[in-house]
């Protein structure tokens, strides 16, 4: 790996390596318009507003590492398995190239960052997915890292906080990726049976095999406003049914109404909300009564 990719220059004026597809930045002024309401915005005002539009609350997509900055106490996060990478178990066409490109684009080795940190002083195992790495898809390395994190948390009596963003299982690893659903779900179950609290923060979008495994198994399911949460993606459903989906379908707000989310929490309040929950759960671990 060359040094350049380690110390990547920001690609646009919005933020570092966290590109936002819908954002067109004016090359001359560095200004841009909000994809939500069209209002002209300054980079700094977006940054101080937790990467959301101050006018309409449109949420810009942020990388997995910045998430950790929002939630963990400064300097408290210790990463596990930072270098773990997936093999190409099926020698799938162009997969190796795609992995290389994803590493370049995201500055990460894989689609999830795992470790332990403190949240307002409460020790917690944390994972944070990264949409810039092959749309946060789950292959063997993602499955293994998350499984190991839950096993560590079980062993060390820690709660787990997971921030999800994912298109689902990583197709290029075939059935190996599908089986990661069972593997991670099993690790979550063991942690739960041992008395561990697991909080999920669903962010935009969380779909497919990730929703249908560890993302829907939280004791408490939180979501960001407007986050899309579903099993099948909206386009797939539209194509299958040959009809337009109702407005707001699969949004956090409608998923809340359907009963699959406990609360919707805005970015600036997430850390304190999670802290309150940890406090109410005795720090997030209570030895199971047998």
């Amino acid at each position, binding site marked *: 790996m060359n040094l350049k990719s380690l110390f990547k220059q920001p690609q646009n004026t919005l933020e570092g390596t966290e590109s936002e597809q819908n954002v067109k930045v004016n090359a001359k002024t560095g200004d841009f318009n909000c994809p939500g309401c069209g209002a002209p915005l300054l980079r700094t005002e977006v940054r101080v507003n937790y990467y959301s539009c101050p006018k309409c609350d449109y949420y810009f997509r942020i990388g997995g590492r910045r998430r950790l900055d929002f939630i963990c106490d400064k300097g408290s996060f210790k990463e596990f398995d930072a270098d773990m990478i997936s093999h190409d178990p099926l020698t799938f066409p162009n997969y190796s190239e795609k992995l290389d490109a994803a590493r370049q684009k995201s500055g990460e080795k894989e689609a999830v960052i795992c470790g332990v940190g403190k949240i307002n002083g409460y020790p917690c195992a944390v994972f944070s997915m990264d949409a810039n790495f092959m749309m946060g898809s789950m292959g063997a390395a993602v499955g293994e890292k998350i499984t190991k994190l839950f096993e560590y948390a079980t062993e060390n009596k820690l709660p787990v906080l997971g921030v999800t963003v994912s298109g689902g299982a990583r*197709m290029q690893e*075939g059935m190996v990726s599908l089986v990661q659903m069972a*593997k991670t779900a*099993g690790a979550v179950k063991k942690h739960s049976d041992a008395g561990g609290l697991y909080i999920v923060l669903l962010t935009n979008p969380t779909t497919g095999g990730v929703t249908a495994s560890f993302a829907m198994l939280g004791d408490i399911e939180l979501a960001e406003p407007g986050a899309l949460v579903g099993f099948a993606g909206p386009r797939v459903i539209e194509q299958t049914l040959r009809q337009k989906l109702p407005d707001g379908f699969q949004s956090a707000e409608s998923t809340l109404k359907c009963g699959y989310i406990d609360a919707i929490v805005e970015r600036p309040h997430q850390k304190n909300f999670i802290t309150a929950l940890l406090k109410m759960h005795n720090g997030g671990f209570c030895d199971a009564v047998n």
Partner: protein
Amino acid sequence: MPSINKSYEKVLRARGKQRPVASDCIAACISDFIELHGDRGCKDDSAIIAGIGYLGQMPVTVIGIEKGHTTPEKIAHNFGAASPEGYRKALRQMKLAEKFHRPVLCFVDTAGAYCGIEAEEHGQAEAIARNLAEMMTLKTPIISVIIGEGGSGGAIGLAVADEVWMFSGAYYSVVAPESCANILWKDMSHADEAAESLCLTADPLLELGIIDRKIEEPENFLKQQVNDEFFNALRIGLYTTFEKLCSKSTRELLDTRYEKFRRVGRYD
């Protein structure tokens, strides 16, 4: 028809109308079957058949994703596409099996979990996730047999088992080859390449440790020619394997099940 590779040919055959479906397997392997309905939440999903019967002398809980053969049958069973209520019905029967230390046998045959508005609103993802977690720690032996189509999340939602078997004509895949081709090459006509790349047939899956046994089908495996010899052998295989699994302690059974799935994946 232009020539297509063996993997895609298998996918197309696995979807064939005349292949034995779950109800045929239940009729051929299980005696005195009693079907039990409903998820106790809001409905009875006809895509999933669940009940209790005898495998030889052994009472077993049987769950099958049913496709049916004729068009009216297919419509009645929603083409083997299960809803969240179906996965919850299956879990309810598995919990009853656990309470009475009765083994669980699943026949999996689905192109995928039902993709629709109601299925999403009723928590398709949650229902599948719950099954994965609960099946991993269910304190009774489970065998899942992929008999035709093993379509993605809808299939694995009933295939977390001590042993996963697969008919030699079946496929088991993270994604339908057509969808895979559409996503990767924006062209469905590359489905056969996708099928080949996805390694979705029994032999490579056995090698990857995804399945535990391949069940060799007779040539031309059609419902009309359902072959006593084949199902006799399957019945005996299931019986002896359940006997072996039942002799393990619960701890050993569950540790072995967890480790089997735990091992899948290659990384550095």
